[in-house]
Every structure is written in C-alpha cells, then in structure tokens.
C-alpha cells in the first residue's frame, strides 16, 4: 500500500525510524498458545446436569461412609466414670480444696465399674480432665525442648519461669507443664485379682527416641516452695518417663483425655472392676472434672459417633439438594423473571427445554 511512502513527506511517515529497524527484525509478538492465552483448557460449568450429578455423587458416597463409621464407633466399648465429686469424703464436700491440699489426708478411693460388653484387649485406660487449659499460652510456652533432649542444655530454661530453677540449680524438666504433672493413680482388680496395667507403651515413639533424652534425669524437680503435681523418680531417664511424655503432649482443648495405660487382657461382660484411685490431683480449685475412661478401639479410634453422623448429615443434605434441583428443572424448566431473555440474548431457536 505504501510502497511509495518514502517519496512523501515525513510528516505522513513519522514512523520512519521504526520502519527501517523492522527490516532487521520484526517486533511481532511470537506466537505460542501460552502468550496468546489459548492454552487448551477444561472449562467446568455448573450446568444443571453437573450440579445434580455432583450432589448425588457426594450423597451416595457420604451416607455409606457415615454408616460405616457409625457402626465402627458402635463396636467400641467405653466406660466413663467421673470420680472427682464422689472421691471427696462427705465431711470435706463443702471444702474440697482443703481436702485436696492437705497432704496428710488419705486420698485413696474405691470405685466399682461394670463392664457392659466384652472388651477385647487392649483396653485403653484414660484420664479425662475438664476445664483444664493445657492450651493456655502461658502454660504451653512454659517448657524447654532443648533441656528435655540433652543434658548439655540443662541450663536453657528461659521460658520456664517461674519453675525454671531452684537454689540448687536448674529444674529438669523445667516449666509449668512438667511441674503440673497429673498424679492420680489407678489400681485395677477384678474379683480381688489385680489386673496388670501396661504403662510403658503409651507415649509416642518419637517422644521417646528424640524429644526426651535417654541420659537426661530429673533434677531438683518438685523441690521448690510449691509442689505442683507428681514427682518423678530421679533415677529413671526422661525417655522412660511415659507419664511425663504423655502429659507434656499438651492437649488441644480444655476437655481432654490422656492415656494412662493399657490393660492387655479381655474384660468380660458384666464383670465388676474394682478401681483404687489415689485422688491427688487438684482440679477442685478451678472446678474441673476428673473422669476415668476405659475404652477399646476400632479402626476409627475411640467411640466417635460425631463423624458418622456428620457424614450422614452432609450426605443427606447433598441428596436433598440434588432432589431439589431435579424438581426445579423438571417442574420449572425455564427461568422466569429474567428480563435479559427478552432482549437480544433471546434467539428464536434457543432454549427448547
């Protein structure tokens, strides 16, 4: 078109500099599907069919899943016994605090539990505390992972205050978590025959091997002015103190269970289990409950109806929505009240359904 462009005025051909350079190389963008934004793509659209299909599929998968979980949870046998109230002698029932804080009073207490169904081994023993804030920021931070791990870091107790050191040197293990170690104990017997409680396999393997040192021994523990919870045998290394390790895995919520031990024998239905409880731990000052829990497990873990029910509810909701949409499309197939379909967007041939 402008082969003769060069003969005319430069005003009409101001782009002359670019023209000459174009001979060398064009500035035309290089074609690729990427740069032209034409990559092959899947474009999911929520068409009625897809919506109905999605909801139906979710429903079909979720309801059976829920039923399976629910039945797994049903198979679990669980005994829960709250003992904090009943283990206080009646003359102290108005001043439980005095009872628990007086070391000279005998704290033992006997409870009888009835096994409702056959409990297959292993039966897990838990203690459950209520209204106990192991997740309080002050509490969670009050520990020293370094110190727990190796002897050489014995002195790193900066986060542990006020349970960091005594006049004799640093406390091992330091901090509020260790200091408040749970110290109720349970003894089990059936028909006067003591049941062995395995207290050795209750901590996480990683805790034993890596977090708690095998050459770190308790030192100056519970020797300060105020005694918190349990004392530790200072001749046993931390990596063998399972109770401590369990306790130091702080709970997520104020109501929590922690493993106490395992009973490695079956408990027959209707058996009466005698439990001798040393009710030492003070939950009375903050009105926390204490419960003893015996439970078997299934693949889903402990007794957990919530998951199954939640699955069934969500699945049911999806099926309900699917039905709603099916009805919507069957009964009222064409959208009404939409002005735009009256204008240019309407085509004579469009929307037969």
């Amino acid at each position, binding site marked *: 078109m402008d082969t003769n462009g060069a003969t005319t005025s430069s005003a009409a051909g101001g782009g002359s500099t670019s023209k000459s350079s174009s001979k060398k190389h064009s500035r035309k963008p290089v074609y690729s599907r990427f740069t032209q934004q034409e990559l092959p793509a899947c474009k999911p659209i929520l068409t009625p069919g897809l919506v109905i299909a999605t909801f139906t599929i979710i429903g079909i998968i979720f309801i059976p899943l829920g039923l399976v979980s629910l039945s797994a949870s049903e198979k679990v046998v669980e005994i829960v016994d709250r003992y904090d109230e009943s283990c206080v002698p009646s003359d102290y029932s108005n001043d439980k605090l005095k009872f628990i804080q007086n070391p000279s009073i005998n704290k033992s207490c006997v409870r009888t539990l009835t096994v409702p169904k056959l409990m297959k081994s292993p039966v897990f023993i838990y203690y459950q505390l209520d209204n106990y804030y192991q*997740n309080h920021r002050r509490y969670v931070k009050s520990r020293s992972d370094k110190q727990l791990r190796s002897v050489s870091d014995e002195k790193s107790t900066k986060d542990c205050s006020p349970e960091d050191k005594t006049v004799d040197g640093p406390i091992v293990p330091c901090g509020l978590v260790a200091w408040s170690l749970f110290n109720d104990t349970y003894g089990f017997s059936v028909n006067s025959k003591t049941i062995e409680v395995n207290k050795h396999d209750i901590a996480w393997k990683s805790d034993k091997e890596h977090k708690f040192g095998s050459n770190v021994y308790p030192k100056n523990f519970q020797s300060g002015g105020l005694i918190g919870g349990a004392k530790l045998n200072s001749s046993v290394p931390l990596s063998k103190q399972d109770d401590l390790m369990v306790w130091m895995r702080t709970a997520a919520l104020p109501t929590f269970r922690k493993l106490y031990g395992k009973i490695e024998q079956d408990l027959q239905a209707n058996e009466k289990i005698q439990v001798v409880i040393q009710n030492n731990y003070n939950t009375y000052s903050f009105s926390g409950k204490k419960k003893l829990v015996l439970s078997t497990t299934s693949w889903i873990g402990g007794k957990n109806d919530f998951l199954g029910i939640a699955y069934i509810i969500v699945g049911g909701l999806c099926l309900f929505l699917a039905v709603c949409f099916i009805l919507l499309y069957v009964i009222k197939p064409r959208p009404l009240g939409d002005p735009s379909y009256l204008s240019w967007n309407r*085509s004579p041939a469009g929307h037969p359904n």
Partner: protein
Amino acid sequence: MARIRKRSIQLSKLCSFACCRSSSQDEHAQIGQKGYSRVVYCNEPDSQEQIRLRYRRNYVSTTKYTAVNFLPKSLFEQFRRVANIYFLVVACVSFSPLAPYSAPSIILPLVVVIGATMAKEGVEDWRRNLQDIEANNRKVEVYDKSSCSFRQTKWKDLRVGDLVKVCKDEYFPADLLLLSSSYEDVVCYVETMNLDGETNLKLKHALNVTSFYSSAESLKEFRAVIKCEDPNEHLYSFIGTLYFDCQQYSLSPQQILLRDSKLKNTEYIFGVVIFTGHDTKVMQNATDPPSKRTKIERRMDRIIYVLFSTLILVSFIGSLFFGIETNNDLSGGNYTRWYLRPDKTTVFFDPRRPAVAAFLHCLTGLMLYGYLIPISLYVSIEICKVLQSIFINQDQAMYDEEMDRPAHARTSNLNEELGQVHTILSDKTGTLTCNSMEFVKCSIAGTLYGRGMTEVEIALARKRGEQLTEQAPIDASESKKSFKGFNFRDEHIMDGKWVSEPQRDVIQKFFRVLATCHTAVPEVMGPDEIMYEAESPDEAAFVIAAREVGFEFFARNQTSIKLRELDPTSGIRVDRVYELLHVLEFSSARKRMSVIVKNPENQLLLLAKGADSVIFERLSKEGRAYEERTKEHIEKYSEAGLRTMAVAYRELDNDEYKTWEQEFLKAKTSVSADRDVLMDELACQIERDLILLGATAVEDKLQKGVPGCIDKLARAGIGIWVLTGDKRGTAINIGYACSLLRHGMKQIVITLELPEILAQEKEGDKEAIAEASLNSIKLQILKAKSQVTEESSTEFGLIIDGKSLTYAMDKNLVNSFMDLAMRCATVICCRSSPKQKAVITRLVKSVTGRTTLAIGDGANDVGMLQEADIGVGISGVEGMQAVMASDFAIAQFRFLERLLLVHGHWCYRRISMMICYFFYKNITFGFTLFWFEAYTSFSGQPAYNDWYMSCYNVFFTSLPVIALGVFDQDVSARLCLKHPLLYQEGVRNILFNWPRILGWMFNGLLSSIIIYFLTTNSITGPAFRKDGQVADYSVLGVTMYTCVVWTVNCQMALSINYFTWIQHLFIWGSIAFWYIFLVVYGSIPPTLSTTAYKVLVEACAPSILYWLTTLLVVIAALLPLLSYRAFQIRFQPMEHDRIQIQRRRPESTEYDATQRRLSESSEARTSSELPSEVRIRIDNLKASSKRKN
C-alpha cells in the same frame, strides 16, 4: 565569502539587527538580577571564572534511586502502605514476650514480600539507568583549543562554555547557542519531536556577528560571554545577552538549540553549551506523570480498612474475655488455675491487674489475627498485573504489521480499569482517521475538479441505501503514479491539460499559491524524487498536488522559493524564483497562513490559504466572483467528510507594503507581552481585499476497522465522545462514516451560530453577547433534555461546538449539560481546543464518577490523556508525545476493541476475583485461629505451629491465586468479542461490588466455622487411632490446617472457569506441597520443628480418622459456595454464565447462526435496530442497578 556576507546582511535585515536594537532595553534591566544570573564564558570552559561558577556537568540521571539511597528510599516507599507498616510494627513487637509466635516466622514473610517488591523496583530502575548510560555515553565533537580541531567526547563530559559541532541527524547534547551553520545564511533546521511531538521542522538562525566562525580555525579566536536567565522549564522563551567584541547583542529563542531535538537538513552547526544536564530545558520540563490508581485498588484500600476494624474488634473481644478469665484466676483469695502459677506470674497474665493484662493481650491479639490482613496481597497483585501486561504486549491480534508495532502497556497498574470503561473520549484526527491526507478534489474558479468517491461518501451513500455500482478498480491503470497524500484524478487538469482549460490563468495562480504558500522544505532524494518535510500532512498534500499538476517546488532557502513549472505559452518547463519576503504563519486562532513574495515579474503578491470562513470575510469586492459557487462546493466537500481550505491572493502595492513592513518588523522584534496581538493585528492589516481563487478538498482517511470497532464498543454499552477541532459538518460526517451516528439516531445540535446571536455579534457588545449566548445555550440544553426524556426509546447523538461548550461548562449549567450528555449515546464536540479536551475529560470523570478512557495520538491530546482515568496513545504518525503520556499504546484505533472487550474484561475479572478470593482465604484462616482462641480462654495461643502460619500466604495459597489473576478467562477472546454486552459486568462493577465482597467474606467466615467445629468434634476427645492415642494440640493443628489448605484451594478450583495445566499444577501442587512441607519440616530436629516433629508421618497419616475428617470438612466447607452458585446460575445467571451455557448447548450452532445473521445485517444497515435493543437492555440494567443502590 563576499557573497556570503552580502546574504547575511540581507537576512539580518529581517531579524537579527532589528532584534537587538529594539528589545535590549527591557531585557537589560533583568540580566544579572535574580533569575537571570547565569554567565557563560564561551570557548573557555577551563577558565577560572567559569570553574568558579560550578555549573553542573552534562551528566543526566533519570533514575528514581541511586546505589546509595536505594535501600532507605525504596524501603520508605514500601512502608507508605498502611498494611506494610502494620506488618513492620508486628515484626518489631514480635521480639517481645507479647508475641504469640516466634519472631523469625513473622519477619521472614515480610522480608520475602518487601524484598520482591523492592527487587521489582530495582529492576525497573536499573533499566532506566541503562538508558541513562546510553544517553550519557553518546559521542559529540568538542572543540579543542590547543589543537584547533574537534575531538570526540562523551555527552556526560560536556561543560558549560564548550564549543561543540553537531552534524546532520544528530541530537543536541545540551542546550546550545547557535553560532554558525553549514548554510551561508547561518540558519539550521531542527526537529523537536521529542519535546513537543511536532514533526515539522523549525528554523533557527544564529546572530549575524557569530556567523563568521564557521570553520575550526576561525573558532580559535572566538571569545564571548553570555549572560542569561537561570535554568527554567519554558521551552519557547529565552532571555540573554551576548557580550562580544565590546558590544552587546540580545539573544532570543531563535538562537537556542534545545537538548533532545535533532538537527535536520543541515550539514553541521557550531554551538556553545549554555545549559547542561539537569539544567537543560527538556530536563527541567521532565515531571513525573500523574500517578493513577484504579477504582478497584481504591476500593481495596477501603476493604483493608474494614479488615483492620474487624481485626481490632476481634482482638478487643478476645482481650475482653481474656481479662475476665484472668480476673477469675484469683477468686476469693484463692488462685483457681493453679497450674498457671498466677501467684508468680508476669504482667501479661497477672490476675491482680486484669485490665493491664487485657490491654497487653489486645496487642497480642492484633498480631495473632494479623492473618486477616493478607500480607502478600499487594505483591501478588503487582506480579499479576505485570504478567497481564506482558500478555497485552504479546497479543498478536493487537500487532500492527504496517508499523511493526505491538500493543504496549506502559503502566501495568491500570489493567483492570480497562474492563470498567464507561466513557471513551476520542480525538479524531490520527485516531479515528489516519491523519494521512490525500488531495482528492478542488474547486477552481467555480469549477469542480477531481472525481472519485471518498470513503465517507461511500458510507453516506450506503446509509441512504443507494446501491453502489462497485467502483471498478478505478485507479488500476492510473495508479501507477499514486502517492501517499495524493489521490486526485481528473483528466482536465492532469498531465498539463489544464493549459487548455478556459480558466487557465486562475488554475495557474491557484496551484502557484499551493506551491509557494507553505513552510515545507524539499529534500531532493534523486533526479526525479523530491520529499517534503511539512508542518502538517495537509500542507504536504498541497505541495505534492501542485507538483503532480506541474508546479514543482524543488528548493527553498531563507529568502526564496524555487518552482519548476510549465509555461503555458511555450509549453516548456521553466524555473521560477519567488523572493520570499514574509511568512505570516498559521495558527489555530488565525486559521490561515499567507506569504508575501515577489515573483520573477517583480510583482509583490500576498498568497493566502485558510479556513473558508476566515478567507471569505477578507475578500475584496472584485475578488468575490466565484464566492457563491465555491461556497456551494465547500459545502458539498465537507458533507463528504473532506477538509477544505479556501485559496486566495492579492497583489500588493509597493508603498503600502513598505509602510506595513516597517511596522511589522518593529512588532516582530519587540518583546512586550502584546507582541503576538500586535503581530496578528498587523497581519490582518495586510491580509485583506483578497481575490478568491478556489478551494481545496483533502480527504482525512478513516483508519482501518474504525466503524466496526465503534459499533462493537457501542454495543458493549460504552459511551463515546469525539473531541475534535474540525468544523461541525466534517465532524458529523466523520461521525456517520465511523458509525458513531447511526441512521435511527436523533441529532441534538447545540450551537451559537444562530441568527440572533450572530446579529448581536455584529453589534459587538461583548457582555451582551456573552449573556445572550449563555441564555441561548441554557434554553437549548433544557429543550434537548425534555426531548430526551420524552422519547426515551430512541437513541440520541449530541453535537456541540467548542464555543457553545465554553458556555455549557458554566458552573450553573454544567450539571444539566452533563446530564444531557450522559443520556446520549454519542457526543461530538467539534471545534474544541486541546485545553477544552482536558477540561471536558475532567468534567466527565468527576460528574459521572465513572471510568473514562481518553484516546489520542498527538501532542494536543496529552492533557486529555493525563486527565482521564486511562490514557491510550495511538503510536501513529504524529510523533511520540501522546504515547509518552499514555498508559497504553496501541497502533490502531481498532485495537481498542480487543484491548477493552478482551483484555480489559479479563483483567477486571481476574483482579476482582483475585482480591475477593484473597480476603476469603485469609478470613477463613484468621477466623479458625479465633475460634480456637475461644477454647484457650483467649490466651493468645495460635492453633498452628508458627511456621505453618507464616508459610500460609507465601507458599500454600499464593500460586493458585496468581494463576487466577493471570490466566483465568470466563469466556474465550472470540466470545468476548462476540458478546460485547459481557463488558457491562465491568462497567457496572458487579464482580467487585460490596455485596459480592461481603459475600465472599461471609463465605470465609462460614468456611472457618465449618472447618473448626467439624475438625475439633471429629478428632479430639476419644482416641483418634486404633492404637488408642489421642489427638493433642499438634495433631489438631495439622488436621485443621490440612482442611484449611484443601478448602481454600478447592474453593479456588470451584470458582475459576479455566483449567489449564498451570491451574492444575498450582492448585494440586500447593496442596501436595503442604504434605511435603510437613514431612520435611517434621523431620528436622524437634528443638526446631517443635510441635511439628514427625507429626504427619507418625501421628496423622496412619490415622484413618485424619483422612476421613479431611474429606468431610472439605466437602462440607465447599457446599455453601457450590449450592449458592448452582442456585445463582439457575435463578440469576450472570452474563458470562449464560454465554458459557449457551456455548455448551448442542443447538448453539443454530444460535450462533442467528446471532451472526443479526450482526451482519446490523452492520449492513449500520445497525439501526440492534443498538436500540441493546440500549433498552442497558437501560434495564442501569435501572436495576439504580434500584439496588
């Protein structure tokens, strides 16, 4: 030599001497005083005096930062953002025990985010630095006194006082005083495109006294001192005095050569450096362009404030409860929660001072819930925008083959604004039209010459429904001699045939005027090839036309113009020399130009060409012989969309000329403020009693694809205003040609060319005229408004001229005028000045509050481009000024369609989705923290490990968002263009209105509730694995976090419409990365990984419950959005939903066919029906949106 001297004296008579004498008095008063203190010792840059003055070197730096100040300055820039300051404060406080998590985990993300932004700044500045280095190291020849010769030096080493030699087509390295040039009469030609965008050549001439220094030897002796003004930004003024040879000579802008302009048509010049580096006028002029922010960004700021308030509220609630709980720790003298040791506690948890603890806790809360504010939002948006603009630059559909120019996004921060344009304000010349002028017709002595139809005529004919017999490739045979700028076909005149025409004298005079009355400069390229450098393309077209007819202009110098023309009697081509006496230049106010020449027959002639109105009122009685018919023809021409000029001449009486010249020279050399007025008056005195010869018609060619593009934009509901300097008729016709005005449209014309106003103007009472005009405009506007409201179903086109516009802009009228204008589909403002263009743009912007886009190509559009929300420059032929001031540069107007409807729409959608999603994901995350807090007695313990949290925004959720912001498309480009109405989504801002934003936030809140409560209830409490272990704090954290990562990424998958492998990679990759991260982080020693140690491998992965919970929570958290979308598509589908679904349907092919038929017929009929339908639809939309508001 003698001859040269004689010539220069002759020239100096015209300018220099007179200059000095008349103007020296008032200038002298100023020299040496404040503002006029600069002293330059010419040719003595090494002298003590010069060095003592310490003027700057010629080194120029345009970078924002230097190596030294980069760190502090760019950090300062970064922390001007509120959000960043917040994060900085948080980072500082994180070292105190107040912090809920460890300091490095909060500082690292901040460092990453700030570092990325600073790196971007740094790279940009480095590029500028490279440009500076290139400019500073250019070579220039500097005079070396010791060797009496020129040697090469770098630009940056130039000093004030240096003598330099600049050769043809080189740029001036600094502001120079012209001493002498290769021309005998010491003139030179300069192109100032880089300064003002004008491509025409400007003539500069040196003082006569310095003209002798035209060789290297003679310069050795040259000594002079210049005293002049201090550096300033006025390009067109200069005041100074040259002290030379014990004499004083005044200097004017005529002798100053400015940096960055280019020497043309002159072999070389010598000059003295006056201003260097940043003192030069061009650098003094360099101001940062106004920084523009998009509406979305401004709204985003407001959302951030909302989030800040939420943050403060949430922390306040938290600290309130914390205070109560802490207070309860001490009840009746007993410490309740003894395991916290409240008796020996710090101030943060002290039950004896719960208020203080609560207050300090509030600070902790502010840090903890800081995840509500997305730290990476700004940097992610910036990354997205840069990538988006790369896509704009790379779009092949916006590449212009002819010019070899792709589209160029000059700023990346306005991309999404492109999708919200409500009104386009367009320049006409060079934007809608090519600005390539073709001489097509002329009327000489009342006879029409030139056949052939213009494009406008074709469009008009089509509009009238005339069936055109396809113009046989008319010019196939004749066009072997076709030139750009010339499209004139007439066998009566061409090839010397004019000689046998009856009016041959007039024809001869007519073309002589065209060949002499101009400021073009010929450039002889070869034996038969002459190029012209002209001020405007019109002028070039005239000169070319004259040449083609046989009046070849081939040489000019300061005093003469040489033509080679056919002698009608002998039939031989002879050279004729016209002595050029004066040029009365063209200005937009004068609307005419004329030259005074002495022809070879020694006749004094005034040759003039100009706007018809101006020329006609200056005709003598006897010169009106052809007036009627010429007027008729001009009318006809302008109807056909042609630009017309009337051509006239006058023979001057010798005495009259002499007296006039004296006065004129005096006026010319005066420096008083009213110099221009004086000169105009004098020009008027001589430009009278003209004799009309005829009129020319030049076609302003429409750019390719303009009508189609405008039609599309109109169908997208974008209002288009054309602001042009043309007269009403031309503007209306161009309007029709490019389908701005359509057949079914009603025109509303607001004008002051009414009989009663004209009558008043003759009386001349200025105040009365103003008042009458104002009233008249008011009346017209009111009348038009009532008309528009009455016939609301028809489309209207408003046409208003510049003069009326000044009255319509009156502050009492402006609102009703804008109201009227907004109701019209098209507004054409004719006869508007550049300043008016900018004012109108500002008005449209402020009155409507909507996004405006200005598009233009010339220096006169710069104001408009900078004023508008978006300035689009056409990188056309009128230089780069508009492009430099623009935000986007495209090569052709028609690319605007794609830029707006495709890229604008996409970018708007992407950015708004992205921001909404950003808030969603952070609210989801932030509120799970809050719910957890509620179960820790608001103690400020975060639910997750520190490093999970700090990686949230940076690793697990950022890439999918960026992919969304860069790649998402609701519909393909083809469909965007096919359904322009889709664009209304952006104009009405329905993807980023408050309900939608709040909806997303609510969705986030809902997600967080579902995640928190489902997870805690499923996982905690009884054993979560077969081996009887229970879920502790770390397991709950991992499970919840897993659910959050899955949920937010799946929500993303649900809300994007375009899944390429990139999206798949990023979304599923982010989720996979979370697991990888857990494994890797969990395997480093427990003192570092703390609660994350082996948590996935040992605790979670073997638990079926963990996986089941994840599935349940994710699906449950997705349900609200899924069902909402399903219902929405069913009951209130959005435009893009509808198009997507239609595309899916099997019968869509049929639908497509109908659509195509409709659109084709609409184009053929210049769309009389369709747009009105669109109009109704848009009105409906507007009405509904109004109702909502």
